[in-house]
């Protein structure tokens, strides 16, 4: 394990653009004959896990894949809508690996590693090639060649898309590649399994404890290396754009076993989601950022204006993004757009009954380009909106509001995507990765796919090269025994509380605390209060939660309870991290640290580091380790989109 | 080859092609039936005589019989598989929008099959000498039968069933053989409905005229 204070990111030397190539050449290899003898566990099968599992199996490793859904095709990468970035420069608008890298680094407010971000940009083109070859029907223009569109925080068109279902098409391509390997017998699929614990033997990740959700059976699974591609934990806010079962339990289990958690407070609140309408709501559906390509965002310039948007004349509309950020207009990055919407609504200009929404209007785009062109670009999204709200966006502006969406933070990984636990890798949204303090649109699919297809399959060999003499790991050792006991203990404890409040009611309260104090805007007082409230709520949970049903059974309430139990710990980590970072950067906006015109004020002298938190014990708080961010190529500048 | 014959899609293709063959045969048969409306029996009888003696037609008859049998057999096999594919039924019957008669094809087919057996008794079995009757004068036989209210009722019911059967079968056969085109499929569907009304109506009109003219 890493020594405290000695986080080695293993960033290769040499010029930025040669690092990955040189690094690949220097990594050790495992021969095909030896790969056959090595087992790898992959948890999660979205764009990252699915592509990784398929690629590893293709290389010859024995792969075991775990998902909590009934099928690997359901991972929430499937809901990614707008697109996937690549620096192909098909539009001849002077795009390049460097520009993509620079946009991402700046978009992340200079809180990501240069080397990682550059690599992400460098392999972006291979990803598009791979997906096209796999049959992803990306949008094409009439020439038969691939089309692109723009996304937030960017001044070129580099986003490849398949209407509003790009994530679905890419994830299914990975799923299909995975299916091919299942058929070939190289991948064993374990669906409807919750991975609840990580097993370490001699400090190395050697297996997992999973609960079979259908039978309740606690299972032991071993491997030579373990890969977590378990997604983000944005559902900690209760209402989010994520699937309702998305969770952070596997990541938290890894954290508690010694993997550091990096930048947990960097949680993206996405500006274009459906607003909260009522108490029953279980989900805030995302309306793709791509809509901001052609849609204009506005509110009334009169406070508390309850008029029908169609009755508000042009001169009484405040296109506040265009007003505040003339250079990028409606295409400012997500954190900026979200805060701007919150600012207007808090000031009393919000739209709709609740005053907690803003308009996204396509009137001008339809006038310029015609309904058919707009329909071609956003048809599925418009239909989705109409189905949910009953409002036809071709005729009337959409109402949107920010919602919890993505966690830039996650398990700390080095350049090889290995966590601080040897043999445990984290991919995609589950790692803290390449997005710094804010992720730009269409770069998540890019990062997930890059991690899964092109990075992990190469870097994991360097670790496994030492394992070729390790026989299959037995699951009857004391480490497995102990881990299984811990899981059983936790689950029976949950069942035995038999209190009076439902799991969901706790989750809602937790979400409310976080949303209020650790959402788009934070301050020290609020964060301290939130930490206190979360601790109290957690205590109450373990005294008064009610979990019906049985252990040995399909029991959704028990699944939820185990997840919510972990959310308390994650929430505390988020808040602790937010309190530590006395600056504003990207999605992390501390009200104490802002410029006169309300923009984020970064503090590079004191906070140009990745916060990596180490679990100490249940009663003491986490311990902070700092990975200093060194910028060799780019000089961090003030991030301005004006 | 075994995989080809064993496949559900092949069975479906066979049903569809046999069905299309029978659809064409219906038209030919109807044309001859119209001769029954002539007051001179000899025209119909000589047509019948020709059908009975011509070697090409004889071969055709065997083919026709086989086509019928294959159509029926394959449909029954597929239907049994279809029943087995949902061992537990829904408690609330379907309210999905579907091609209406598609749900009753096997039953409609059953009614038509019963009629066919009757039909065989009266004509075909006389012709090959298995049962007694005047095999030289089918015209008289048909006219005699069409005077019986019971027979005419059975006849009409059977052809109404055929109409319903065809209503789905015509367009369905095209879909099964792989013909589905944005531009032409609506025309196929329209022709199918037209055919399913006109042909059985033609068959029904003949006994009705004979019956009512008595």
């Amino acid at each position, binding site marked *: 394990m890493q020594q405290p204070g000695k986080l080695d990111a293993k960033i290769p030397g040499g010029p930025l653009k040669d690092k990955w190539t040189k690094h690949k050449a220097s990594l050790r290899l495992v021969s095909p004959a030896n790969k056959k003898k090595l087992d790898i566990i992959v948890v999660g099968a979205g764009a990252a896990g699915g592509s990784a599992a398929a690629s590893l199996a293709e290389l010859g490793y024995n792969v075991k894949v775990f998902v909590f859904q009934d099928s690997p095709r359901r991972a929430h990468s499937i809901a990614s809508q707008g697109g996937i970035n690549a620096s192909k420069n098909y539009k001849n608008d002077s795009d390049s690996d460097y520009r993509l890298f620079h946009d991402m680094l700046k978009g992340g407010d200079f809180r990501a590693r240069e080397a990682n971000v550059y690599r992400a940009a460098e392999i972006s083109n291979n990803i598009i090639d791979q997906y096209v070859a796999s049959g992803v029907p990306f949008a094409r223009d009439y020439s038969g060649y691939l089309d692109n569109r723009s996304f937030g925080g960017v001044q070129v068109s580099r986003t490849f898309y398949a209407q509003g279902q790009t994530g679905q098409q890419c994830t299914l391509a990975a799923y299909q590649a995975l299916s091919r390997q299942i058929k070939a017998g190289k991948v064993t699929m374990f669906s409807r399994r919750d991975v609840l614990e990580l097993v370490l033997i001699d400090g190395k990740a050697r297996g997992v404890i999973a609960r079979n959700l259908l039978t309740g059976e606690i299972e032991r699974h071993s491997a030579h290396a373990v890969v977590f591609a378990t997604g983000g934990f944005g559902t900690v806010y209760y209402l989010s754009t994520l*699937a309702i079962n998305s969770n952070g339990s596997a990541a938290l289990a890894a954290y508690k076993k010694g993997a550091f958690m990096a930048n947990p407070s960097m949680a993206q609140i996405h500006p274009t989601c459906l607003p909260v309408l009522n108490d029953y709501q279980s989900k805030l559906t995302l309306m793709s950022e791509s809509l901001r390509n052609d849609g204009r965002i506005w509110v009334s310039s009169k406070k508390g204006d309850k008029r029908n948007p169609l009755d508000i004349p042009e001169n009484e509309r405040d296109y506040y993004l265009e007003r505040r950020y003339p250079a990028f207009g409606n295409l400012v990055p997500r954190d900026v757009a979200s805060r701007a919407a919150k600012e207007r609504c808090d000031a009393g200009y919000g739209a709709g009954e609740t005053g907690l929404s803003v308009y996204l209007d396509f009137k001008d785009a339809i006038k310029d380009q015609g309904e058919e062109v707009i329909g071609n670009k956003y048809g599925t999204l418009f239909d989705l909106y109409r*189905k949910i709200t009953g409002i036809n966006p071709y005729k009337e502006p959409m109402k949107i509001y920010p919602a919890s969406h993505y966690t830039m933070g996650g398990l700390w990984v080095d350049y090889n995507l290995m966590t601080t636990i040897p043999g445990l890798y984290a991919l995609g949204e589950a790692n803290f990765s390449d997005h710094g303090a804010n992720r730009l649109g269409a770069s998540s699919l890019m990062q997930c796919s890059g991690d899964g297809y092109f990075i992990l399959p190469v870097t994991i060999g360097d670790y496994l090269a030492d394992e070729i003499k390790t026989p299959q790991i037995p699951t009857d050792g004391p480490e497995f025994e102990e881990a299984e006991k811990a899981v059983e203990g936790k689950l029976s404890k949950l069942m035995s509380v038999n209190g009076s409040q439902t799991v969901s009611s706790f989750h809602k309260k937790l979400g409310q605390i976080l949303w209020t104090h650790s959402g788009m805007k934070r301050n020290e007082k609020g964060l301290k209060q939130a930490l206190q409230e979360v601790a109290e709520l957690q205590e109450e949970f373990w005294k008064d939660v009610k979990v019906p049903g049985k252990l040995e059974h399909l029991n959704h309430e028990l699944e939820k309870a185990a997840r919510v139990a972990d959310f308390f710990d994650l929430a505390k980590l988020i808040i602790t991290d937010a309190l530590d970072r006395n600056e504003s950067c990207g999605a992390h906006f501390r009200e104490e640290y802002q410029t006169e015109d309300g923009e984020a004020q970064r503090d590079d002298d004191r906070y140009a580091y990745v916060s990596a938190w180490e679990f100490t014990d249940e009663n003491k708080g986490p311990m902070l380790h700092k990975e200093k961010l060194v910028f060799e190529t780019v000089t961090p500048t003030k991030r301005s989109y004006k | 080859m075994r995989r080809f014959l064993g496949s559900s899609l092949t069975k479906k293709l066979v049903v569809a092609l046999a069905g299309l063959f029978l659809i064409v045969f219906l038209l030919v048969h109807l044309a001859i039936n119209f001769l029954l409306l002539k007051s001179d029996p000899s025209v119909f009888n000589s047509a019948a005589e020709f059908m009975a003696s011509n070697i090409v037609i004889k071969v055709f008859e065997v083919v026709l019989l086989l086509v019928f049998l294959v159509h029926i057999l394959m449909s029954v096999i597929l239907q049994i598989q279809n029943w087995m594919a949902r061992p537990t039924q829904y408690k609330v019957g379907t309210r999905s929008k579907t091609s209406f008669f598609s749900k009753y094809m096997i039953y409609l087919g059953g009614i038509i099959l019963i009629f066919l057996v009757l039909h065989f008794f009266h004509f075909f079995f006389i012709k090959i000498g298995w049962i007694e009757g005047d095999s030289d004068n089918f015209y008289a036989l048909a006219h005699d039968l069409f005077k019986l209210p019971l027979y005419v009722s059975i006849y009409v019911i059977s052809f109404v069933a055929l109409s319903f059967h065809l209503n789905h079968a015509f367009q369905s056969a095209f879909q099964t053989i792989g013909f589905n085109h944005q531009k032409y499929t609506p025309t196929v569907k329209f022709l199918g409905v037209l055919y399913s009304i006109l042909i059985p109506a033609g068959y029904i009109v003949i006994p009705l005229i004979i019956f009512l003219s008595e």
Partner: protein
Amino acid sequence: MKITLKIWRQESAQDKGGFVTYKMDDVSTEMTFPEMLDSLNEDLIKRNEVPFAFDSDCREGICGMCGLYINGRPNGPQEGVTTCQLNMSMFKDGDTITIEPWRAKAFPVIKDLVVDRTALDKLIQAGGFISAKTGAAPEANAIPVSKEESDIAFDAGVCIGCGTCVASCKNASAMLFISAKVSQFAVLPQGRVEAKERVQTMVAQMDALGFGNCTNTGACEAECPKEIKLSNIARMNREFYKAKIS
């Protein structure tokens, strides 16, 4: 509004199962269908009863996890939606809603409204992929694909694998499901290479898994939440015959 629910409850695959009637007095028309079910389950928990199980995940109509047979129609009375997108405004005060699990031999019931749809995964495993190895792909723009064909591929590719087509079909046939995948790859040049093999293995697998046969009733097309067209089935039929003849 007031609603009466008749929900299929079944302890396990072996259990016989039956309907249990629940009355709800305070259903908002703003709820989605699963939100309504959630709120009933919350009430059941508070009343010390065991909540019923139903699958649901993304709640935005894309993951395909949910899927209930509601009043004689998969995903209820609203057109072109998944169960999670179904609005309670589609129902009236005083309505009785009967909820059943998907019924098919290939989709055995696991518990209450939860069924096992791994058969759909097995169909994809049989050949619903292009064997493009990681790293072996040529430059993406090397092969132009006409917009028309690309759009056909996309329209077929939007299938979410929810099983509505099987649930709605009177024969519990998975033809729309496999034909969507066969079509998506049949129209793309990258998919043509394996087209013959793909259609044959997928159809053979469909037969082996106990799905029924297509009788062109059109129920699947009418109910598919992603509005996948019957023309895909015709295309698959053509592909199949072509593969067998050549």
